[in-house]
């Protein structure tokens, strides 16, 4: 208590310094005069009285000094003095200061921008209560020892998990889905999710208007309802308060709006942001569906560790496998923290390269500033020599130099944050609409980002300041002072040392510039990568027929055929075709080949309409694809040998497709030859695509069809 009071008093002493000084001077003066007067009254001469007073009082200047030290915080005052000195020094050479600050601002600004983007996307804690308890659950292929990425879960497995798992407060399934909203004008596709009971309660979000889903909403035959996101409510419905109870035409049927959820829900970032939610009431087809269809989110019970939940789910997984043995399914259950899943995306190659490039840039600016300061330190050797001559010790000088570096770095940091602010504004404006799909409404500079900028600034100050400060504080005093106005430290050895330092710094910066340039080049190469598919003059299109209206295969086929025919008639369109999943896109459409080889081989496949090769511009090896029919009932596909997976050889393998055969509707054709290598996503999943064609035109798959259009070249406006 007392210590605190004394400390606060001392701190306040830093501000009331002038007043306190005046008070002390007057008080001591008064005291001395009184002593003098007393001595004079004793009969001493004025001069003697004066000496007597001083004798009795003791050292006046010492007393003042002790008082000053008691009053404030001497260490802080020294630092403040250093800071003031540093800023004065900066103002004395404005051009130099501007250069240094600009160089630092670029380095710090770039790293702050990148950090802020990564922070917004991956590291910012999820805005839910106890976000550390939130986990994603899914199934993962086990390929040998390696666990594959998380895949959707079968609905019935999800129900089993709910029954058996004890580690979780709640386990809730959801399924991303595009809804077609028809509110009078143009129908609009809106990203949404069908969610099982307790989804909002699991996340811990409360509706800002109306209510969430009730038990009745999830019962079969209940009144269809929808919950909107704040974003959709404000954007499409104008944020009217009276929307609750009104109806919206969703996928062709009237649905009652019961609530509005606040803000973008960032759990949905993984799947792409949802704008509206409807209750997930599985249809009989979905219940019977043999492939993963739902994603699963869960909240751990308080105090349950992720590891124990994982081991419990491993037991559940084994038990389920024992109950329903299926040799085609090599799955394990994967449980990952939601935040970790988000953060894992930050280790994407582009992010890594970006971080490295930014670090390079920062180091380049450090090295450059270091060289500049080194030059300045040499110029200032006279000043330093003078200060040493007057009794400053080495440590004091190093501190002075470091304070100056810090002042430069902080000024650079402030300018850098300003630059980052501009850069982020620019990024948000350009990427905002893209990011909005992912539930991110723009990048921002928050406390974490500012903290990051501060830490980076201080760190750079140490990095670029340490060498000049050590070098600058070592001066041959007598030599320098003797040289007079030249202000140059003599001695050939010393100059050689300085020369070497400059050489090292220049070499370092050349290396850094080269590596930074290479890294930026690799980022560029990421975008210019030859995916094996020409990306120019290609348009894509997606259309989902409403299930209610197009309820049979025949109707859907007519719809798609019409779509394709009309697309081909569009002016400027040269070719159009349908495909179940875009080239490059890593869809869930893969087949597992089972055969002689010990390791199962996976192959992605595409179901395409005639003319796909022309529309997509896939150059075929061996000219026209030779297609041979394979009856769907035989369930035997021919696996042609290809150059990219020699392990497959020419052996015949049984393919276990990702999609159910019947859902695809046969008969099917498989091409003997593969087309050019088409890359899919990351290098690790490079499986050559098999391109198959349906003889009867497009048929219904478990997914919506995509159209790919080729534009005529001269129409290229952009």
């Amino acid at each position, binding site marked *: 208590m007392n210590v605190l009071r*004394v400390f606060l008093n001392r701190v306040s002493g830093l501000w009331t310094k002038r007043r306190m000084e005046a008070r002390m001077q007057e*008080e001591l003066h*008064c005291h001395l005069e009184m002593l003098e007067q007393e001595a004079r009254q004793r009969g001493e001469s004025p001069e003697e009285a004066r000496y007597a007073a001083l004798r*009795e009082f*003791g*050292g006046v200047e*010492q*007393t003042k000094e002790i008082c000053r030290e008691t009053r404030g915080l001497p260490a802080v005052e020294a630092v403040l003095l250093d800071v003031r000195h540093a800023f004065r020094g900066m103002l004395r050479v404005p051009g130099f200061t501007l250069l240094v600050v600009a160089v630092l601002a670029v380095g710090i600004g770039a790293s702050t921008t990148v950090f802020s983007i990564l922070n917004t996307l991956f590291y910012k804690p999820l805005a839910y209560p106890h976000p550390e308890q939130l986990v994603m659950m899914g199934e993962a292929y086990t390929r040998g020892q390696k666990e594959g990425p998380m895949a959707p879960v079968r609905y019935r497995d999800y129900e089993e998990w709910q029954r058996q798992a004890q580690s979780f407060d709640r386990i809730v399934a959801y399924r991303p889905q595009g809804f077609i909203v028809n509110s009078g004008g143009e129908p609009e596709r809106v990203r949404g999710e069908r969610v099982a009971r307790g989804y909002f309660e699991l996340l811990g979000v409360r509706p800002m208007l109306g209510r969430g889903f009730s038990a009745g909403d999830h019962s079969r035959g209940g009144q269809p309802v929808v919950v909107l996101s704040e974003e959709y409510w404000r954007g499409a419905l104008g944020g009217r308060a009276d929307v609750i109870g009104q109806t919206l035409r969703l996928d062709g049927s009237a649905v009652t709006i019961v609530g509005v959820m606040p803000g973008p829900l960032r759990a949905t970032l993984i799947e792409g942001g949802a704008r509206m939610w409807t209750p997930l009431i599985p249809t009989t087809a979905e219940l019977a569906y043999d492939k993963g269809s739902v994603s699963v989110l869960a909240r751990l019970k308080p105090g349950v560790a992720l590891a124990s939940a994982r081991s419990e789910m491993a037991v559940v997984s084994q038990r389920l496998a024992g109950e329903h043995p299926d040799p085609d399914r090599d799955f394990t259950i994967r449980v990952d923290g939601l935040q970790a899943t988000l953060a894992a995306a930050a280790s994407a190659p582009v992010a890594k390269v970006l971080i490295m490039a930014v670090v390079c840039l920062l180091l380049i600016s450090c090295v450059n500033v270091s060289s500049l300061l080194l030059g300045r330190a040499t110029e200032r050797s006279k000043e330093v020599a003078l200060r040493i001559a007057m009794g400053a010790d080495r440590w004091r000088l190093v501190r002075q130099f470091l304070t100056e570096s810090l002042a430069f770095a902080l000024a650079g940091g402030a300018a850098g944050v300003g630059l980052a602010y501009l850069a982020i504004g620019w990024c948000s404006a350009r990427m905002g609409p893209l990011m909005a799909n992912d539930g991110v409404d723009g990048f921002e500079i928050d406390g974490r980002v500012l903290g990051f900028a501060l830490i980076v600034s201080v760190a750079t100050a140490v990095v670029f300041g340490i060498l000049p400060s050590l070098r600058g504080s070592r001066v041959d005093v007598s030599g320098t002072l003797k040289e007079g106005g030249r202000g140059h430290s003599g001695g050939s050895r010393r100059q050689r040392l300085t020369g070497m330092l400059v050489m090292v710094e220049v070499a370092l910066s050349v290396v850094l510039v080269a590596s930074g340039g290479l890294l930026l080049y690799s980022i560029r190469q990421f975008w210019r990568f030859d995916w094996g598919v020409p990306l120019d003059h290609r348009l894509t299109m997606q259309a989902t027929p409403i299930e209610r209206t197009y309820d049979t295969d025949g109707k859907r086929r007519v719809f798609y055929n019409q779509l394709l025919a009309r697309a081909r008639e569009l002016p400027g369109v040269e070719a159009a075709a349908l495909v179940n999943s875009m080239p490059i896109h890593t869809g869930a459409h893969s087949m597992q080949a089972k055969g002689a080889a010990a390791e199962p081989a996976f192959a992605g496949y595409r179901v395409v309409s005639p003319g796909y090769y022309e529309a997509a511009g896939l150059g075929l090896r061996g000219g026209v694809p030779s297609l041979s029919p394979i009856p769907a009932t035989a369930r035997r596909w021919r696996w042609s040998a290809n150059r990219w997976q020699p392990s497959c050889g020419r052996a015949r393998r049984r393919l276990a497709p990702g999609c159910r055969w019947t859902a695809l509707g046969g008969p099917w054709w498989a091409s003997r030859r593969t087309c050019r290598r088409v890359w899919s996503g990351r290098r690790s999943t490079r499986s050559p695509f098999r391109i198959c064609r349906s003889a009867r035109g497009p048929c219904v798959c478990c997914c919506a069809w995509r159209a790919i259009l080729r534009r005529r070249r001269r129409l290229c406006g952009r």
Partner: protein
Amino acid sequence: MKEGSKADVLQGTLDLMVLKILATMGPLHGYGIAQRVQQVSENMLQLNQGTLYPALLRLEQRGWIDSEWGRSDNNRRARYYSLTAAGQEQLAVEAENWERMAGVITRLLQGT
């Protein structure tokens, strides 16, 4: 000056002296306090009057004494120090401590 004829002020005792003097005499300026110390000690104490001021500053920082400008007897502007309530309590505590300490020392000296 002969060794032992005048005692140095013991560490920490100056604070106690100042507190006690302010308690008995009421508000006083620095010179007044110094005079009082000399007077009570009958010049047995070696006191650099300057050392009084850091002590006063310390006591003020701790909130035991208060100070304000006032007029001295011969109408000179001077800073007057007075005891606060907290200072009163502190005086009691320190006086007790001192008596206990003095008692220990006395007993020790008598014992030999």
